[in-house]
C-alpha cells in the first residue's frame, strides 16, 4: 500500500465530504428557492466526489474499508480536511465566501491532477473539474453581487472575508506526503496553484469592492488531524446512524 497516496486521498475526499455536508445543511433554509436548490445541487456534486475519492482511498489502503467506512467510522483526528471547509455556514454571505475561496483553489488543483501519473486519481480529477468550473462561476458571481451590492450585503461580505481569511494559508499546506508523491508525478506542487488562486481571489475581491485583510495570523492543523471544535459537531450528525445502528443499510 502507498501510505502517502492514502493520506493524500483522505485530504481530497474529506474536503469534498465536509464542504458537501455543510452545503447540505442549507436544504430547506436557503434565502431564495433557487439558491436552496443550487446549494443542495452543489452538495450532491461534492458528496459524489467524496464517494469516488474515498472508495479509491479504501482500495489503496487495502484494509477492506470502502468509502462509507471511511466517512462514517473515523473520528475527528483521523479526518484530513481543511479547517476552512468545516467553518459554520453562518449567513449566506459567509457560505458563499467560503465556497469561493475553496472553489478558486480546487479548480487549478484538479486541472493539475488530471495530469497525475496515477490513472484513477487523474480520472477523478477530470470528472470533478467539469463540476468545479461551474461551482467557481456560481460562487464568484455571488461574492461580486454581495460585495458590490447594498450597504448591508457589502458589510456582511467583508465580515465573511475577514472571518475566513485566516484559514486560507492552509490551502497550500505541504509536508513529506506531498514531497514523496510529487517525486513520483502523482500530485502537483502547490506553488503554481497558489499563484493562480491569488490571482482569481484578487480579481474577484476587487470587483466585489471588498478588501483583503492584512492581518498576519494564520491557522492550520486540519491536514494533520487537528481540527476546530466544529468538526466534532459535523461528525456527530453525519455519523449518527452508523454509530447508533452499526452496519445498518437502506
Amino acid at each position, binding site marked *: 500500500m502507498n501510505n502517502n497516496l492514502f493520506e493524500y486521498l483522505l485530504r481530497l475526499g474529506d474536503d469534498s465530504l465536509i464542504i458537501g455536508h455543510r452545503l447540505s445543511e442549507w436544504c430547506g433554509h436557503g434565502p431564495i428557492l433557487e439558491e436552496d436548490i443550487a446549494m443542495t445541487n452543489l452538495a450532491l456534486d461534492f*458528496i459524489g466526489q467524496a*464517494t469516488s475519492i474515498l472508495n479509491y482511498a479504501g482500495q489503496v489502503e487495502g484494509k477492506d474499508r470502502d468509502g462509507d467506512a471511511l466517512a462514517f467510522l473515523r473520528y475527528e483526528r483521523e479526518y484530513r480536511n481543511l479547517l476552512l471547509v468545516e467553518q459554520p455556514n453562518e449567513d449566506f454571505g459567509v457560505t458563499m465566501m467560503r465556497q469561493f475561496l475553496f472553489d478558486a483553489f480546487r479548480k487549478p488543483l484538479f486541472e493539475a491532477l488530471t495530469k497525475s501519473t496515477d490513472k484513477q486519481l487523474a480520472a477523478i480529477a477530470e470528472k470533478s*473539474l*467539469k463540476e468545479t468550473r461551474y461551482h467557481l*462561476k456560481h460562487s464568484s*458571481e455571488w461574492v461580486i453581487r454581495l460585495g458590490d451590492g447594498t450597504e448591508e450585503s457589502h458589510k456582511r461580505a467583508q465580515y465573511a472575508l475577514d472571518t475566513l481569511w485566516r484559514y486560507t494559508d492552509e490551502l497550500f499546506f505541504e509536508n513529506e506526503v506531498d514531497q514523496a508523491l510529487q517525486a513520483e508525478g502523482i500530485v502537483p506542487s502547490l506553488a503554481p496553484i497558489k499563484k493562480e488562486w491569488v490571482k482569481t481571489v484578487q480579481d474577484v475581491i476587487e470587483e466585489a469592492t471588498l478588501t483583503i485583510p492584512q492581518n498576519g495570523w494564520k491557522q492550520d492543523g486540519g491536514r494533520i488531524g487537528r481540527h476546530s471544535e466544529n468538526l466534532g459537531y459535523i461528525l456527530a450528525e453525519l455519523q449518527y446512524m452508523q454509530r447508533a445502528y452499526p452496519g445498518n443499510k437502506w
Partner: protein
Amino acid sequence: MITEGQIWKWLEEVSDPEIPVLTIVDLGVVRKVELIDTKVKVTITPTYSGCPAMQVIEEDIIKLLKSKNIQEVEVQLVLSPAWTTDWISENGRQKLKEYGIAPPADEVDKSVLFAEQPKIECPLCHSFNTRMVSQFGSTACKAQYQCNDCLEPFDYFKCLK
C-alpha cells in the same frame, strides 16, 4: 449466439430513472459492451459525480440481462473520459424536446462571469424569448428556465463539456 449488437439493442430497454423518456444509450451513459466467454461486461459512466441514478441504472442493467438469460453480468463504472452532453444522441435530443425538456445548446464559457446565457427554445411554444431562472434545477444536469411569451417554466438540460 448473442452478439454485442444484440446487447446494445437490449440496453435500449433501460431508461434513465430520472428522465424516463431517455434510454441509457440515448444519454451516452453506456460506454462499452464486451462479451467475454459467457460473461457480458457493460461499462458505464456517470453524468455527474453525485448522480444518484447510477446505482439504479446498474441494477436495471443486471436485471434486464438476467431476464435475457445471460447468467453472468458485470457492470463497471468508469470516470474517464468524463461524460459530456455531446454524447446525448440526436434521437435523445429529439425525445427530450418532446418530453418538455430543452436539450443542451452550445456551451457558454464558464470562466466568463455574468456572461449572457444561451438563448434556449421553449419546448412548448418554440419561442426563443426565454430567460434562465436558475443555473440549478431539479437534478444536477438541469437548469431552470421560463418562457417570456407563453410563461411556461421548463427544465433545460445544461451543457456540460
